[in-house]
């Protein structure tokens, strides 16, 4: 059981900044995210795109913003459960919560802050007949253990970075890699496209474009796919099919936690502390809604800050505390590090 002060669901910019504000109050945080890396949409969808409305940054790449946030929160030693989705929540007698992920990891905290953005990212599934019948029986949407594909025949579909990168990676693992895409052009990074081209020439990747998969065949386990090239269909035998058509966010299991939901977002009290209808559960950033809500990173930062102050009062109801300025007080990391403003040098003139 992982124990922490504030359990943050969602490791996007808002969730990450909450770690910093909590750290100033000496509260420890642990984050759960369905994606394998922190940063949420910024890292997953548009890491190389600029953001122009972060106060004090005339321009910052989304990926750099995430890196900076990770650097900023490092002294407060956050824990991470990545690649797992928060599934269930149970309120304990003492008012604390136990959150369990889809992989069974349990987390215990007196305060839960949902910073889930638009939801957890789920793979977009192609519209193919009997698709669900072959899920985990030859079809997977996420590659967890590449060794599964060793010396097997693999078909990958998609035109973005993950389709390209995994085709390149599996070219050295699988016995046969076929990459199928509806266009001759790819959206991915130029060097990945060039690498695939090179591997195609070497005969290590079988590239079929413009084409799409139209049928699945098998008996219990996937055995072949039908590939439509121009108007002609051909049967391609394979052991695995990995459709990589990107991810789409879904509110998912959180929608069943008894929270008040409005338009796919969690209603919170914005006049006070962004708490939900369940005391002790807060919702911050894009996942919440209130009159006048704006889904902006800078608004998420503000909400995270107020949430932490309220969380402190909830955890230590008997303690009095006033907000401190980092310029005055410096930052005491949980790792023993200290950052502080340089002391003024006082010199006497004789």
């Amino acid at each position, binding site marked *: 059981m992982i124990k922490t002060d504030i359990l943050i669901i969602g490791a996007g910019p808002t969730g990450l900044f909450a770690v910093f504000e909590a750290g100033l109050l000496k509260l420890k945080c642990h984050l759960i995210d369905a994606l394998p890396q922190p940063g949420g949409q910024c890292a997953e*969808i548009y890491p190389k795109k600029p953001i122009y409305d972060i106060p004090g940054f005339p321009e910052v790449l989304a990926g750099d913003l995430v890196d900076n946030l990770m650097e900023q929160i490092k002294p407060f030693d956050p824990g991470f459960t990545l690649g797992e989705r928060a599934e269930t929540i149970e309120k304990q007698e003492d008012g604390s919560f136990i959150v369990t992920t889809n992989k069974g990891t349990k987390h215990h905290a007196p305060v839960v802050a949902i910073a889930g953005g638009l939801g957890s990212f789920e793979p977009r599934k192609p519209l193919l007949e009997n698709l669900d019948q072959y899920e985990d029986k030859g079809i997977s949407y996420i590659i967890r253990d590449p060794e599964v594909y060793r010396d097997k025949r693999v078909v990958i579909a998609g035109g973005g970075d993950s389709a390209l990168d995994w085709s390149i990676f599996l070219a050295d693992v699988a016995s046969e890699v076929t990459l199928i895409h509806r*266009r001759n052009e790819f959206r991915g990074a130029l060097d990945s496209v060039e690498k695939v081209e090179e591997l195609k020439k070497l005969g290590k990747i079988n590239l079929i474009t413009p084409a799409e998969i139209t049928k699945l065949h098998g008996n219990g386990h996937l055995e072949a796919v039908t590939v439509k090239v121009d108007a002609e269909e051909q049967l391609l035998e394979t052991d695995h099919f990995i459709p990589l058509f990107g991810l789409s966010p879904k509110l998912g299991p959180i929608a069943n936690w008894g929270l008040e939901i409005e338009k796919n977002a969690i209603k919170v009290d914005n006049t006070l502390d962004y708490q939900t209808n369940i005391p002790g559960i807060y919702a911050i950033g894009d996942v919440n809604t209130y009159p006048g809500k704006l889904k902006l990173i800078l608004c998420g930062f503000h909400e995270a800050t107020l949430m932490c102050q309220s969380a402190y009062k909830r955890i230590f109801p008997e303690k009095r505390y006033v907000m401190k300025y980092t310029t005055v007080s410096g930052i005491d990391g949980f790792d023993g590090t200290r950052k502080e403003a340089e002391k003024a040098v006082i010199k006497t003139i004789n």
Partner: protein
Amino acid sequence: MSDINITITDREGTIHKVEAPTDMGMNLMELCKAWELPVEGTCGGMAMCASCQIYIHSDHPLPEMSMDEDLMLAEAFHVKDNSRLGCQIQITPELDGLEIEIAPEV
């Protein structure tokens, strides 16, 4: 500049006749969101998610499809010949009377 009229059919088949400003730098994805129609626009308008896919039902002159939009649609579902990404079509006076339909959710 004056507003123009655009007809939007939502996923339930309900028809919404809406006014759209031509001077706010808005696109069709944002127009749908402004009228609280169920378009996700997850990526915010970068042609990177296809959650604002629409079908064009009138023959208005539209901006040519960029390679980004074309490749994103190549990986989207429920794509038809008249599919476009709403975020890639700016609202201009020439689009007065445009008829669009929101594609199914994925």
